[in-house]
């Protein structure tokens, strides 16, 4: 997949937005000496115009709708596309060649005495920085030729606004940082248009014709600071295109275009184009009135609203209109042409003691530093052209100052009277004027490029830190923490009510009702309390009076309210803003622990736990225990391989040791992991009575209700939960756990509905996917854990999902994170404190069941073959055994492999289901994986399946891959920033020699029963150059020979190694009974298919 790039190009004649694409290819160094003088080499990483066209189409961006085509009308383009005459269409689009300077590696080859160059890939530049790997070669900017399309300003806006703004979920991986920058500028331009920040002008063009143009107006304080910010953050990549496509004239690469100029030029161009497009075919005034206007004015107005109208009036008319427009815009002229470094600033000061009048003092303020102020007196003392003040140079300080005063007196005539003296420094405002200044004038001054400083207590006009509001302090009911621990029946929940006190506060200060009444009596919008001036809004006064009048015992504050208040989400109670919230006692501890899970003391490993918890696992268990105590649903979202299941098992043991396990716990998981769970529980917690609820013979009705009470943990699949929800509802569950909780991501799905209907006191969700980035999933899981906490789905969609997903709104994202953070514990294997707890190589056995179909096939083959094997001897017998083993392994892999079918569609396999699930997590975590199989034919089936499943290219390296293919695959897997993250390898072709350290997961999908061979394969990843922890997943089908051989190997590893060292030969030595014992299928391992 290519990465799209682009930028605005300022040319003498015609400026445009240029887009191009970059892909990855094996290093193709260019001999620097072979480049002729004046020749610009073609960028080997840049894709051709045709490829770019296809790449854009694959992103649902039809470039044809953006690029102007010389001769082809849009309708015929459509026909072309329908006929799929791709090349024709591309041929019609003007492909443009452009020169750009790019970071380039210069490699000196001492032997050949030559210098080779190649451009650095945009994504790998970033990667290198991250891995802090030292850069081996020197890098310089070097001009390269690239191919792409030119977009007019209108097309550029259309293009940029059709790209996704949000950067969550990696969906923007195809966008270069440069385009993401321009996307934001394009959005800014819409904002400028919506606020009317543009001016009509008249403009003489390059060719001498006169046209009307719209010019962007960046006068307001907010736009100035945006310009400032964008100017500093613009990626250099946007600025190294060569204007007018001129190659550099000398050896020195041209300095990049000034950032502010480039942004300004783009805004000017798109503003002009956008206004004209928006107004096309619309006449703001009647034609009759229009014709009454002088011809020049009439033409000018028309040209302002049409894309390509020139003004052909007589010269005098144009001159006079130009003069009038110049005079008209004169007050803004210096904003239009220069980027002022200083502006006149107005500071509102509260009255001195015993005075009533406020003072508005005049200053000069640095545009880039609001703290840099020069007072009027100083300015008047320095009638200079250049004034050096605190290490800054001010050009014409008095003129700048006076100009601002002049503009201000226009915007706010009250100032004018203070300017009747030679050297004005301030004016006085009565309280009403001061209030008006705060309410409406300050904004207007700032919007016109002047500075305003308000008293701190009045400055925050949107927030309510200084408004009239409530101070609330809350605590839990009479119980203390210890009581809570001991009293099992009186658990709290989100809806539990708290005891709380409130006080009225204004400007951060508590006031009594009497004081409040006194303030109201002043009848002034601005009041002073203990030296602080605050605003008293009429609406707040009314609400407060109503609040006093109402019965306060009707007020409720729940734990959920408290949580929202402390996270800054809810801010109003009884229509009054809550200006401060304090929790005391147990509640304070709870709030502290919820917002900082590090403060929860780790629990020691329960003594009945068979094994040792790692330190972070102990913390995880303690965290679960903590939330359980408060009845708050918990989502444990640790990375794959960190041991979520172990943490859950240890947590259950902890409850058991505390004698808190009163009712059975229900664990819901995908069918593919049912048996894995049972094995893990039995291995680590023999004291937990576990029951797999599945299959036709599962207890029903009353038998179930009775049976369930004999167990601590019931494991069931999602599909069964839905089917048996009525029955499961009759049980009072201690805990309901959802494993692979992403299964309820669709809240409308039947299984999602079903799990919500189960009665329980505590809910846990386990998931390895980065749940915080997938908002619908997040909502659905949170809504299961803590119903109603994130609001209903429509509300969530409107408040969070839309702003975050559509606009990449960081503020909403931050708010959402802080709301859900108490309930989600997610540790990454790359976290510093996790890494030190983890072994460099973790080997895990993944137990999968068999589908009914697999089981039937397996059983039939075993029985049929054993009969014939029994009656044969010698070589023939050995051959038959080996071929039987192969068949059984094939069935364990997938029925379609055994049946030699061409796709996997018509059958299913438990192993494959599990692999699909795990690979999805691998990809979501940004990891890479190798999948080893001993069957080339399995790789051939698996590759298209995974490509379809994961919607991306997958590599398959096996015996028939040519040398060239192998090299390309390995190179791309190791180096291509956007290369496929998964590679399937046949054990024979890929088991030795290769270096694939970019992967950190190894899957052994089927087994060779020879640890040495498997370890050798694993070492493709776990070798020098590997910087991360490696996880090895060994797949085993339970109840089959795979499990039994695995057991043998695990239980007597040393012996097994001796036995099995020679491959699978030893199996042929077994007698028929031994063989039968080894091969016979354990029916318990058969998983119930999802079919109903």
């Amino acid at each position, binding site marked *: 997949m290519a990465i799209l790039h682009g930028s605005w190009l300022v040319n003498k004649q015609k400026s445009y937005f240029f887009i191009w694409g970059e892909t990855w290819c094996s290093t193709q160094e260019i001999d620097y000496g072979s480049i002729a003088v004046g020749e610009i080499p073609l960028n080997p990483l840049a894709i051709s115009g045709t490829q770019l066209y296809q790449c854009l189409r694959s992103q649902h961006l039809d470039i044809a709708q953006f690029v102007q085509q010389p001769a082809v009308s849009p309708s015929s383009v459509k026909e072309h596309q329908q006929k799929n005459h791709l090349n024709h269409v591309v041929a019609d689009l003007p492909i443009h060649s452009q020169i750009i300077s790019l970071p380039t590696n210069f490699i000196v080859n001492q032997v050949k005495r030559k210098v080779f160059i190649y451009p650095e890939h945009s994504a790998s530049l970033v990667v290198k920085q991250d891995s802090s790997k030292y850069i081996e070669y020197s890098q310089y900017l070097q001009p390269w030729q690239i191919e792409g399309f030119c977009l007019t300003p209108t097309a550029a806006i259309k293009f940029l606004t059709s790209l996704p703004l949000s950067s969550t979920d990696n969906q923007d991986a195809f966008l270069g940082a440069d385009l993401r920058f321009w996307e934001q500028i394009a*959005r800014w331009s819409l904002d400028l248009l919506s606020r*009317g920040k543009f001016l009509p002008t008249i403009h003489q063009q390059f060719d001498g014709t006169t046209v009307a143009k719209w010019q962007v107006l960046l006068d307001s304080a907010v736009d100035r600071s945006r310009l400032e910010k964008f100017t500093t953050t613009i990626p250099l990549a946007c600025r190294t295109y060569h204007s007018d496509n001129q190659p550099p004239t000398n050896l020195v690469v041209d300095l990049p275009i000034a950032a502010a100029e480039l942004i300004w030029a783009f805004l000017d161009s798109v503003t002009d184009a956008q206004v004209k497009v928006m107004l096309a075919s619309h006449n703001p005034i009647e034609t009759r009135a229009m014709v009454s206007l002088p011809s020049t004015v009439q033409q000018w107005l028309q040209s302002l609203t049409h894309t390509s109208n020139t003004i052909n009036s007589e010269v005098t008319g144009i001159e006079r209109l130009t003069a009038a427009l110049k005079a008209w815009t004169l007050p803004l002229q210096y904003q239009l042409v220069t980027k002022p470094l200083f502006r006149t600033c107005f500071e509102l000061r509260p009255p001195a003691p015993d005075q009533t009048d406020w003072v508005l003092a005049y200053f000069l303020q640095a545009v880039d530093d609001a703290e840099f102020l020069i007072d009027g007196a100083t300015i008047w003392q320095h009638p200079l052209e250049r004034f050096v*003040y605190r290490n800054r140079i001010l050009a014409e300080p008095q003129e700048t100052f*006076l*100009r601002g*005063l002049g503009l201000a007196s226009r915007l706010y005539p009250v100032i004018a009277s203070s300017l009747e003296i030679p050297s004005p420094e301030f004016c006085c405002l009565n309280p009403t004027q001061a209030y008006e200044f705060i309410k409406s004038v300050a904004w207007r001054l700032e919007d016109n490029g002047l500075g305003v400083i308000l008293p701190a207590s009045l400055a925050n006009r949107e927030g309510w830190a200084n408004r009239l509001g409530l101070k609330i302090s809350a605590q839990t009911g009479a119980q203390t923490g210890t009581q809570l621990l001991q009293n099992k029946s009186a658990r709290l929940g989100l809806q539990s009510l708290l005891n709380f006190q409130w006080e009225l506060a204004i400007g951060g200060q508590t006031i009594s009702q009497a004081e409040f009444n006194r303030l109201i009596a002043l009848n002034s919008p601005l009041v002073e309390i203990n030296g602080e001036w605050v605003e008293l809004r009429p609406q707040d006064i009314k609400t407060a009076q109503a609040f006093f009048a109402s019965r306060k015992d009707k007020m409720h504050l729940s734990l959920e309210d408290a949580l929202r208040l402390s996270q800054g989400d809810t801010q109003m109670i009884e229509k009054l803003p809550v200006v401060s919230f304090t929790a005391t006692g147990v509640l304070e501890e709870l709030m502290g622990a919820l917002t900082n899970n590090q403060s929860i003391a780790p629990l020691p490993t329960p003594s009945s736990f068979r094994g040792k918890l790692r330190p972070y696992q102990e913390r995880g268990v303690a965290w679960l225990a903590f939330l359980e105590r408060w009845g708050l649903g918990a989502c444990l979202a640790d990375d794959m391989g960190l041991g979520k299941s172990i943490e859950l098992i240890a947590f259950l043991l902890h409850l058991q040791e505390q004698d808190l396990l009163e009712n059975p716990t229900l664990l819901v998981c995908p069918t593919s992991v049912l048996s894995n769970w049972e094995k893990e529980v039995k291995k680590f917690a023999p004291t937990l009575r576990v029951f797999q609820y599945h299959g036709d013979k599962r207890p029903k009705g009353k038998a179930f209700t009775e049976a369930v009470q004999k167990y601590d943990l019931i494991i069931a699949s999602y599909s069964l939960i839905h089917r048996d929800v009525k029955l499961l509802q009759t049980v009072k569950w201690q805990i309901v756990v959802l494993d692979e909780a992403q299964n309820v991501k669709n809240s409308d799905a039947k299984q999602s509905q079903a799990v919500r209907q189960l009665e329980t006191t505590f809910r846990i969700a386990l998931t390895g996917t980065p749940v915080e980035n997938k908002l619908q999933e997040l909502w659905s899981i949170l809504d299961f854990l803590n119903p109603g906490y994130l609001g209903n789905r429509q509300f969530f969609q409107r408040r969070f999902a839309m702003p975050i997903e559509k606009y990449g709104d960081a503020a909403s994202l931050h708010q959402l994170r802080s709301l859900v953070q108490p309930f989600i514990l997610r540790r990454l294997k790359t976290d510093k404190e996790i890494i030190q707890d983890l072994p460099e190589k973790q080997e895990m056995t993944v137990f999968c069941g068999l589908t009914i179909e697999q089981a039937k096939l397996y059983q039939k083959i075993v029985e049929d073959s054993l009969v014939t094997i029994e009656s044969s001897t010698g070589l023939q017998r050995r051959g038959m055994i080996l071929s039987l083993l192969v068949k059984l392994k094939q069935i364990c892999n997938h029925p379609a492999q055994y049946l030699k079918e061409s796709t996997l569609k018509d059958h299913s396999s438990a192993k494959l289901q599990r692999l699909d699930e795990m690979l999805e997590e691998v990809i979501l975590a940004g990891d890479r994986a190798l999948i080893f199989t001993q069957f080339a034919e399995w790789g051939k089936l698996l590759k298209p399946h995974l490509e379809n499943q994961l919607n991306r290219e997958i590599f398959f390296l096996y015996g028939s891959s040519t040398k060239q293919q192998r090299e390309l695959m390995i190179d791309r897997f190791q180096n291509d920033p956007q290369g496929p993250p998964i590679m399937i390898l046949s054990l024979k072709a890929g088991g030795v020699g290769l270096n694939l350290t970019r992967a950190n997961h190894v899957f052994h999908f089927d087994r060779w029963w020879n640890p040495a061979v498997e370890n050798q394969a694993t070492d493709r990843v776990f070798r020098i150059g590997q910087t991360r922890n490696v996880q090895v997943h060994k797949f085993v089908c339970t109840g089959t020979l795979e499990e039994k051989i695995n057991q043998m190997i695990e239980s007597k590893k040393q012996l097994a190694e001796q036995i099995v060292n020679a491959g699978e030969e030893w199996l042929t030595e077994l007698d028929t009974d031994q063989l039968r014992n080894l091969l016979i299928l354990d029916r318990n391992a058969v998983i119930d298919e999802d079919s109903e």
Partner: protein
Amino acid sequence: MTNFTLQANREWWSQRWLDLLDSYRFKKRLERARNYARQGNILSIEFKGAKVLAKVQGSEVEPYQVFLSLEPFTDEQWSYVIETMSQRALFAAKLLAGEMPQNIEEVFTANGLSLFPFTLSDVISQCSCPDQANPCKHIGAVYYQLGDRFSEDPFVLFQLRGRTKEQIISDLRHLRSTKVGETGIADGGENESSNATTLAHTQPDSLKIEAFWDYNEPLESTLVVITPGSSETVLDVLGNIPLAKDEESSSTADLVMKYLQAVYSDVSQKAVLAAMKIGEN
């Protein structure tokens, strides 16, 4: 809220000029001159220093040359005017902000001067036409159009009296500096040779090659939801465009402003709509 009342008599200077013409005794002659102007016989008007040069199409093929000038103030007179102006910062402030102070005339009258001539006879004029009468209808035509020119660029008034706006502004500064010198207010400014640099506030142009492709800023939260601005726009701040005022259709500027206002509100709505549809193909 629009309390920008200052536009109401913005064009008092052109009104004053027209009043001056009205006070002229030979009404008939001026009437003809006005028609002349309206019929487009004035080919060009140029301000050269303190002089007005115009070309007026008469009955002959070659247009007539018209020269107009007022008696320029002497340097001494100007220095009084500047002195008076400097007493009130408002004058400098308005001039710098591109605005003609409404009460500018006070500065001149305080010094026994008048920015405007009292009578037409104070206007020195000359025409290349054979007509002996002054003003001839060519001169009269130029008179009429000067009113429009004054409203389009009021600062040419100063120019006709011998000073440009820029000169006045710099004279004012000069005066302030001599005053500071006289009163001996210390020049508290730092010595320029101190290591003051402009670098402190000009962005160091970082050419960090390793950050060549970097952009990690999220969309500014104020740009997430785009709402229409307040009803107040730059049109309210600038007021009417000073377009020539025709007696009959005095509404040119009003019409243009109406046109522009419709444009601004329309664009604002459409931009808000466009912003909502972002990310959709």
